[in-house]
């Protein structure tokens, strides 16, 4: 490792109207170094990444590459200067196929293909349309495209937030390998495990300002969190109080041999009131479609769903909502009215039915919305339009909507995607609290370590089937991981 700073950004400031996203952000990366860029939701990480890569123009600040001022006026210029980003949202063109997306950025296709398979995607054709591909694959393609451009500095903004565990491992391994070859990496993430595995150094942003620069070593986590939040946070409340279930009770949601060919073929489980049931699955095991079916977006091809003992079938999400099933999707872009205010986003379900098309009950609305904002501590500085919130705060709004409406059965699909530690630690108790108040919760998460923190039990889905049910008490990461890879199933069969 040499001491030349590959990239040196300093004094960067940026305001969006009244919101000062960055005031004095600094960052350096040396050759072969992986620097974590950390900060709470809304600290300004993404804004910083966008400025370094030319997607946004800063109000002030310099970017030096190898000690010289670099032209980064636009993403194309930054790319030529050797700075290649993977933004938090997929930046591939939805209506073009993979090959055309490569041509657009003049990315050679052979190295691209190499990286795609290296990163664990095997079934990709260059003629696939981007809009037909799942989110996780898009993230991988974005990364493979960036790697194929042979960047000097790679910037990854919450690259792994939407990835299942197996792909995360591949990504970390690959990035480490490239860093060993001398590439500099800026790595934005809220996941401490990844950061301590991967990074050499952490730069911490708080309220738009760089407040610290630490080497990664044992026990650095507490220090980082302290810097991030400006206060100490009690970490690691692992085991939760568990309720026991009266066995004779009718389940809130009973799913029997449910199938939506070819995505999943045999899913059965019971979800009781007061229970949080985890769903453990690797990418593409049919969990997306399972949630879609339960939420009324898709029709099952076979099987039965009962709510409180009565069979139901949904032709529209409104039917599911009427039956008490509410859904927080994984992709927040699907759930948000990006140009509307936080209030309107949260209050949307209030006026869904024609009976409620009349005058708004504004007092009720204000109270409910206020309750949700407070519960989730949504940063509403930029509340006029949800798209101006930081990604994490947008995610909170999608959950807040059902918190305000009141829940019977909540289908949470990866709700902690891109949410900072503090908020995560607020979300698990919140989920538990809802359950204790009688809600039934189905909880899929791509971060396995969350399962024991929030769930009473977990069903394991592999290859479109429920292969195992694990009790929360025994659900350590190791067990879950083996189950997710279908290993327990194999043993069971043997």
């Amino acid at each position: 490792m040499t001491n030349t700073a590959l990239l040196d950004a300093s004094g960067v400031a940026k305001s969006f109207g009244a919101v000062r996203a960055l005031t004095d952000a600094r960052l350096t990366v040396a050759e072969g170094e992986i620097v974590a860029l950390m900060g709470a939701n809304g600290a300004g990480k993404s804004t910083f990444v966008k400025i370094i890569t030319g997607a946004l123009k800063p109000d002030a600040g310099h970017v030096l590459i190898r000690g010289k001022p670099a032209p980064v006026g636009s993403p194309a210029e930054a790319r030529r200067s050797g700075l290649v980003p993977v933004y938090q949202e997929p930046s591939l063109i939805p209506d073009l196929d993979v090959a055309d997306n490569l041509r657009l950025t003049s990315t050679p296709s052979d190295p691209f293909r190499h990286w795609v398979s290296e990163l664990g995607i095997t079934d990709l054709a260059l003629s696939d349309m981007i809009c037909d591909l799942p989110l996780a694959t898009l993230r991988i393609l974005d990364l493979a495209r960036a790697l194929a451009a042979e960047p000097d500095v790679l910037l990854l903004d919450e690259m792994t937030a939407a990835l299942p565990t197996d792909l995360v491992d591949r990504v970390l391994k690959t990035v480490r390998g490239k860093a060993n070859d001398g590439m500099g990496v800026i790595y934005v993430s809220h996941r401490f495990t990844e950061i301590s595995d991967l990074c050499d150094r952490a730069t911490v942003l708080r309220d738009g300002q760089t407040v610290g620069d630490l080497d990664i070593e044992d026990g650095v986590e507490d220090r980082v969190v302290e810097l991030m939040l400006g206060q100490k946070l009690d970490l690691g409340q692992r085991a939760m109080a568990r309720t026991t279930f009266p066995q004779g009770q009718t389940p809130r949601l009973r799913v029997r041999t449910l199938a939506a060919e070819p995505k999943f073929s045999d899913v059965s489980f019971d979800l009781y009131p007061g229970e949080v049931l985890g769903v453990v699955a690797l990418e593409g095991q049919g969990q997306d479609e399972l949630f879609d079916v339960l939420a009324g977006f898709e029709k099952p091809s076979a099987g039965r769903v009962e709510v409180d003992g009565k069979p139901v079938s949904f032709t529209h999400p409104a039917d599911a909502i009427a039956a008490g099933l509410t859904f927080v999707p994984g992709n927040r872009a699907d759930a948000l009215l990006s140009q509307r205010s936080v209030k309107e986003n949260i209050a949307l379900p209030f006026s869904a039915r024609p009976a409620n098309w009349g005058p708004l009950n504004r007092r009720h609305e204000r109270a409910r919305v206020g309750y949700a904002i407070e519960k989730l501590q949504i940063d509403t500085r930029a509340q006029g339009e949800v798209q101006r919130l930081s990604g994490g705060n947008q995610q909170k709004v999608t959950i807040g909507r059902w918190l305000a409406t009141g829940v019977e059965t909540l289908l949470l699909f990866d709700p902690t995607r891109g949410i900072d530690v503090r908020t995560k630690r607020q979300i698990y108790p919140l989920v538990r609290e809802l359950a204790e108040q009688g809600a039934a919760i189905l909880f899929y998460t791509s971060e396995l370590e969350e399962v024991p923190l929030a769930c009473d039990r977990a069903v394991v889905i592999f290859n479109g089937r429920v292969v195992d049910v694990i009790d929360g008490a025994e659900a350590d990461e190791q067990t879950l991981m083996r189950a997710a890879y279908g290993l327990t199933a194999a043993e069971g069969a043997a």
Partner: protein
Amino acid sequence: MSRFLRKHAWVSGLAALLVVLLIVTKLIQPSFGASGLESIARAALPFAFATAGMAVVVIVGGIDLSVASMMAVCAVTAAVLMERMAGIPALMIVLSLGLAMGLINGALIVLTRVPDIVVTLAMLFVWEGAALLILESPGGATADWLEHAIRGSFVFDGLPKALLVIALGIAIIWLPIRRTKLGLSIYATGSDERAAFRSGVAVGRTKIAAYAVCGLFCAMGGLSLAALTGIGEPVPGPYLMASVAAVVLGGVVLGGGKGGLLGPIIAVFILRIIRTILTLLAVDPNVTTIIEGTIMVAVVMLGTAASLRGARR
């Protein structure tokens, strides 16, 4: 093969519909033949170019309400110039004029950051006024060779010259663009402007280029108007709504990023041939209006329903 059909299902469906309509025409009027085809191709000429121009800007994610007015400007300019000077230079001037008008539209959209529809709505009036200033009332004259270029058949009967003009005009401009990075950028910008920007596309320049191409097609449309009538008329014809309808019928999605030029051009022919059929059947013209509206809506309805079923992935 099935992949090809699925990807091009809409265009294939339209082409099949066109063939069916041609057969129907032949059944209604057994004497319908080469001259009938020729007159349909000629009638389609200005619509085809207006539609091609519109399709390009719709693909880039915009819309151009000023196509008919730009065509009027080009038609009167052609008629005025050709009365005074040689045909070829006049032709070149008209084509560059169209290009320039398109550039102005695009530049105004990018520079003022006013939405496309507003800018082109305003420019609709500006170009219309310009046409009236160039030629106060219908007049001028076009070169004879221009008229002959679109009349009659090429090599053998049944291949109308007008059809060839449409095919060549569009192929010469669009195919090279489609193959270069500009074409890709046009689709990318229409599909997702932010992602395109982040992929290094010069979004502003791409939009301006798309509008310029639209202007160029409008110049061809204006030239075909002049060639058809032999004069220049300063009043815009009914090409705006017709081109929007053909573009949507042709499978280009309003909002951008999807579709091509072939579908819209086939749609133009379908709309023209429907009018021929209705005339041959001596349908009451008031009812004709009703039928045209119904067919337009019905085709899109059927197509939407079919594609919704197909899209259950």
